[in-house]
């Protein structure tokens, strides 16, 4: 089930809210586990058992770790391997088979054609963080299977993140506060996320679909640019919208999750971008891969090797396809260059240049990211620079789409900056009448989102590959 659906908002959510707040505090984690399994099983009636298996394995690992401190390393190693094997099998098996088939003599290998369990990359990473945190002594063992299960399956962030590290919610699983102010704040975040997804991302996505579907000989240079810019907006608002909905729903249930996006499109460098984009994933990789590999403590060569490993994994994490690996390598190169000298250069040039430089490479990166057919991606890239765009620099259709979307593009640009939120909080602090207006606007936005959902012909879920 996805948040941006009518059956979530008008069947699942009301039922969950009633049950959750009706039952005593003591069994709320159990209730969360039950409703989260239902949430997952709704879309994945078979793989819900796979997820249950992961929960039991990692719960048991935590239990054994506590009893058997001296063999901790072995327990962690075995658990990590089991988890990665499950992830590897369901996500990457066919990819490896498809590539092995290209080797003469191995062409008889058959792919399994299994569908990817939704969210497996997210919940596997979450479950792993528990075992590692407990091993490192960063978190206590969770004795209650219900509470641990609730942590792994927690429906707000189950299928599209943020990847919550165990130590960040350890305390909240034991005790958390529910009150009106928190609930209202969660609601505002939920509505903001829903609006990002339904009003901004879906509309931008439809435009990307439109521009990418134009046959090459009808394509214009500006049209190609506008198309990929729309895709960049779609991905950001879709992804950060999901994260906001997760954070908001979490808050309504008494959880505080860390922010997952911090206005990535105002970055002044690629390094800056990766501190702002999908923060929970990059911090996971930093904490559980980069630093264990030695981080930057063993000299320049080892540092670059570690970066290479991390970025290959980051790319591959996003999907079992070559373009994601390429995309990861692309960022390895950019980040290495910035580490070597570009970073210093960027800190001296005017801000605007840093922004333009970052956005340029981010946008080209998204083209690589979206092009599972790498060849088609490069043709599109060529079109962006005038090579093979059959209809010239721009045409009536580009102007049409630009003009009709102009107010919308302005909204997209403004919403990519911290300004709206800042203004909201300043007014919220200062003016009581604004607080009332704010509530009314939030409710009105929710109604508009419902209208868009009722009439939705285009409402994709982008993370099937993750």
């Amino acid at each position: 089930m996805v948040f941006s659906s009518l059956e979530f908002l008008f069947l699942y959510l009301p039922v969950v809210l009633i049950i959750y707040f009706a039952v005593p505090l003591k069994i709320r984690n159990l209730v969360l586990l039950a409703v989260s399994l239902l949430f997952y099983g709704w879309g994945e009636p078979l793989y819900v058992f796979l997820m249950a298996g992961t929960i039991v394995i990692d719960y048991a690992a935590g239990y054994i770790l506590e009893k058997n401190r001296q063999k901790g390393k072995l327990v962690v190693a075995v658990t990590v391997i089991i988890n990665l094997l499950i992830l590897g099998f369901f996500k990457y098996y066919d990819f490896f088979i498809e590539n092995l088939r290209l080797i003469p003599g191995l062409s008889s290998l058959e792919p399994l054609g299994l569908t990817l369990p939704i969210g497996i990359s997210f919940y596997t990473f979450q479950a792993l963080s528990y075992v590692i945190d407990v091993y490192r002594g960063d978190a206590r063992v969770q004795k209650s299977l219900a509470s641990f299960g609730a942590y792994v399956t927690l429906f707000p962030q189950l299928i599209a993140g943020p990847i919550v590290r165990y130590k960040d919610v350890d305390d909240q699983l034991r005790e958390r506060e529910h009150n009106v102010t928190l609930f209202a704040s969660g609601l505002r975040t939920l509505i903001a996320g829903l609006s990002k997804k339904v009003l901004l991302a879906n509309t931008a996505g439809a435009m990307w679909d439109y521009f990418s579907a134009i046959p090459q000989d009808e394509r214009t240079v500006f049209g190609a640019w506008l198309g990929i810019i729309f895709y960049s907006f779609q991905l950001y608002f879709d992804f950060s919208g999901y994260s906001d909905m997760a954070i908001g729903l979490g808050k309504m249930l008494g959880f505080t999750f860390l922010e997952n996006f911090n206005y990535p499109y105002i970055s002044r460098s690629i390094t800056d971008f990766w501190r702002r984009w999908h923060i929970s994933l990059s911090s996971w990789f930093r904490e559980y891969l980069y630093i264990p590999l030695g981080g930057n403590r063993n000299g320049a060569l080892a540092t670059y090797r570690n970066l290479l490993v991390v970025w290959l994994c980051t790319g591959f994490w996003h999907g079992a396809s070559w373009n994601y690996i390429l995309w990861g390598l692309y960022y390895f190169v950019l980040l290495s260059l910035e580490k070597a000298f570009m970073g210093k250069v960027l800190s001296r040039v005017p801000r605007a240049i840093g922004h333009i430089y970052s956005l340029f490479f981010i946008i080209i990166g998204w083209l690589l990211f979206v092009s599972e057919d790498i060849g088609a991606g490069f043709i599109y890239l060529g079109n962006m620079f005038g090579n093979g765009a059959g209809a010239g620099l721009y045409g009536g259709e580009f102007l049409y789409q630009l003009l009709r979307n102009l107010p919308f593009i302005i909204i997209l640009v403004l919403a990519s900056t911290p300004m709206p939120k800042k203004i909201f909080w300043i007014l919220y602090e200062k003016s009581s009448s604004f607080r009332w207006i704010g509530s009314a606007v939030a409710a009105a936005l929710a109604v508009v989102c419902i209208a868009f959902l009722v009439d939705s012909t285009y409402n994709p879920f982008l993370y099937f590959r993750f």
Partner: protein
Amino acid sequence: MVKGQIKEQDRLLDQSSLLSIQKNLSGKTRRSDIALIALFLTIVFGLSVAFFIIPDKDFSEEENRVLQGTPSISSPGKFADRLISGKYTSEIAKYYADQFPLRDSFVGLKAAVVLGLGGRENNSIIVGDGGRLAELPASFSEETVKKNTDVLISFAKVAESLGADFTAVAAPRSADVFTPFISSPSPLIYTEETRQAISGGLSVAKYIDLFDTLVPGIAEGEYLYYRTDHHWTTLGAYYGYCELVKSFGITPYSLDDFTISTVSSEFYGTAWSKAGMKWISPDEMQFFRYDGDDLFTTVLENKEETAFDGFYNESYLDKKDKYAAFLSGNNGRVTVTLGYGHGESQPREKMLIIKDSFAHAMVPFLARHFDLEIIDLRYYKSSVSDLIKECGISHVVAIYNYDSFVTENSFNILRLSTEE
């Protein structure tokens, strides 16, 4: 690295959401927050409850389609299959979208927001001057057109081998003819590409492109296409008829030979339903009647046969899909004959029409000259060559609008193999 992590935490703390959490923990409960929660819960619970209370509708007049009913959970074995395949949950999703309370108002609200933000289209329907609605083609593929025209060419060959002549007639889409009313800059409509691809694909056959027949009149404000539907008006179909029969050397009946009567001024067509722009006013629909047009017998052959006098099924005039008043909408095979003893001294020539729904409004005109066999390749499953032989067809005419040519498989390519 500990230092680095502290820095990371600092940065996150900087974010306003954490600030607000700090505020939350120390702050007092605000009435505006209570109001927000109350509003939201009222909306969510109100609509949830309304969804359950309001009885389901089987059919949407507004959108002219069957709506999804409660997905069944009976017969546990089948239910498990459907659940696992995801069919059940997707039916639930459709059920919610179709039966949602105030659905029409929400659809209208969305259109209003989209147009309010300066857009001129919603759900790929563009609105031109004077409330003219036109569906924008999703894209254009020469290959698809070629596949479709190839089917017609093969029918042309079949017809010729059986001694009948073949003519193809193509009518433009609303988007093609409404361009004078779509202010610049305009979206991609692919009119020229489409016209060239069709005429290229049909170059070995006799082909009449109605674009130049219809567009000048429309540009001058003649009412040849419905503003809210994707079809042409009866007058538009009349011009199409004139071009077709002139190509046979027949003089068409003039407009004076018909009694034109407005049969509905409340026609909200398919484009209107899709656009969600509730403020667009309806179309008028006219019948061009003539003395004796009720002496014709129309036989519909679908699952069962039904026959009626004349061409019109007026019961559709009270429904949403008023265009279906012509020939009762889409049917596999329709036969239109003039009963014996009605002033015809000798049997009339027979015409076979292979068509989409654009042909329906043309039938009352063509029937004045020919006995008609009308088939829709999407529904008619028997052999066309047998039909030509059995009925003694002398003219085979294909009447389609451009959309059928650019749409995948509207000519049912698969059945071609059974033909040859």
